[in-house]
Every structure is written in structure tokens, then in C-alpha cells.
């Protein structure tokens, strides 16, 4: 069901969703799909990724992307699908976006518990990020259409 971007379900999923499945098309026309963290700021969906990752390279050639946001519980019966145009930008996102990422994924109570429980792995994570292809970058995705779609694994019974 196609809906307005301001539809309450879309807004809820954009606010509460934790992982966006970002579908892109390669230069050779092949599909690529990657789960990425996201935040919404000023009407734009922001996701962080290296500037030379497959998703980033695909967007540089083909900016039309599809983003699927599932409900974060097994009980969710629908997902939200966005069509949008993405722009690849080098470096870190603007500070309001960074702040939203920090609050959502590192400082929220459950996030903080996970971070503290894995404090011994932080150095490994730092080295992992340092090895990301092309260095830090991000995608700014401007949604142009939204749909509420049924999740086939979650029949309304």
C-alpha cells in the first residue's frame, strides 16, 4: 500500500526502526543488499558506510535505492519500504546526525549495556573501522515514496 511519507506507520518505523536493509544496483546491473544503521534528520535518511564499500560504489553509479525497514519484533506484521535517491559523501556525517547515531546506537540504555558488556572488544572494533574500504563516508537518502508492505512470515492470525 503506497502511503504518504508523513503516514503515521512510516514515521513510527523511521523513528523506532534500528536496521535498514539498503538495496542498490551495481554498475553491471546486479543486486546488492546490506543491513545498515540509520537515523533520520531533516527529512533525510542517513546511513554510514565506507566510501569504497559495494553499497557506496553502487550508489555513486546508480543513486536510486530501495530501503526496507522491518519491525523490530517478531510480532510486527508489516514493514516499511522507501524509494529514494542516495548521495555518497566522504567523511563523517554532520554533527546533528552523529549525535543522533550516538544516542540511538551507543547511549540508549540497552545499547549502553551491550557496549559495556563488550568493552574488551572496543579496540578490535576500532581496528575494524580503520580497515573499512575507502575510509569513512555516508549516504544521504532522500525518500521520494513510501509503502507499507506485509511481512509474509508474520500472518495476522
Amino acid at each position, binding site marked *: 500500500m503506497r502511503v504518504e511519507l508523513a503516514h503515521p506507520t512510516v514515521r513510527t518505523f523511521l523513528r523506532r526502526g534500528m536496521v535498514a536493509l539498503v538495496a542498490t544496483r551495481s554498475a553491471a546491473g546486479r*543486486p546488492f*543488499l546490506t*543491513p545498515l544503521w540509520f537515523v533520520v534528520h531533516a527529512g533525510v535518511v542517513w546511513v554510514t558506510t565506507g566510501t569504497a564499500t559495494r553499497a557506496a560504489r553502487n550508489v555513486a553509479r546508480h543513486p536510486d535505492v*530501495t530501503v*526496507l525497514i522491518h519491525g523490530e519484533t517478531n510480532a510486527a506484521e508489516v514493514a516499511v519500504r522507501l524509494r529514494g535517491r542516495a548521495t555518497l559523501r566522504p567523511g563523517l556525517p554532520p554533527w546533528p546526525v552523529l549525535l543522533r547515531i550516538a544516542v540511538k546506537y551507543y547511549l540508549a540504555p540497552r545499547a549502553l549495556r551491550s557496549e559495556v558488556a563488550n568493552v574488551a572488544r572496543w579496540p578490535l572494533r576500532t*581496528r575494524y573501522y580503520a580497515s573499512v574500504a575507502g575510509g569513512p563516508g555516508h549516504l544521504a537518502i532522500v525518500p521520494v515514496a513510501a509503502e507499507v*508492505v506485509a511481512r509474509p512470515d508474520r500472518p495476522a492470525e
Partner: protein
Amino acid sequence: MPGLTTAWSLGSLGAEVLRGRVAVTRDVDPSAVGDLGGRPPRATLAFVASDVAEALPVAARLVDGVHRVGVPARDAADLHGREVVLVVDDGPYWFQLRGLSVRGTARRAAGADGGLVWFAIEPRRVLAWDFGRIRET
């Protein structure tokens, strides 16, 4: 001289790290995330149609080592024979993120379980990750 041996080993490891030769990975064997083959929290199928990358929520099952996806009939028409990417994944926070990606060709499969049309994926590449198991390689 176990002490010297240990010191040399640690020194070599440090040098390798400095040179960037000791990589860090979150990749795991697909069997390590085998539980996602049941009823994963997120199951998504991507393919290209009309020059645009599409993404569908799907039902995903691992049956006898074969990844199967179920989609509503309205989404099934164009899938047979297409290159697809299935991602089943879980977790909201960094050290909880894990998943499996299967790239291959969708082939119509028998059965209509759950009123869905089912496809088996002939895999060309399978990748699995678990950020909670990040480690040096």
C-alpha cells in the same frame, strides 16, 4: 627458553599489527548463524527489476541445506531465474549484529506453505557475519 619465545611472538604480533597485516574480521562460518535459517527477525530479498534494486520482506527457511524464500503471489511473477540476494539478519546494536547473505539464482520450488509462492536459491556466494565474534585473523 619459553619466556624469550613468548616475548618474540608477542613482539612479532605487535609488529604485524602495526604493519596492518593482522586483520580484524567479523566473518563467521554460515553454520555459526544457522539459527537464522528458521524464523529470522529480518528476512529480505533483493533483485533488480526495471533497472532498479528492489527489496521485499520474505519468509525464509533453510531446508536440507537449501535456502528457500516465500513471497506473496503478486511478488512472485518475475522472480524465477533472476539473480537475487537474500539477507537474514538479527540484532540492533553493534555487538549483536549478525546475519547471513546468500547470492544466487531463484528457482521456483514446489509447495505453497502459508499461501506463499516458494523459491529455492541456487547459491553462488554465501557470507555470514557476527559482530559479537569479532577477532583477529
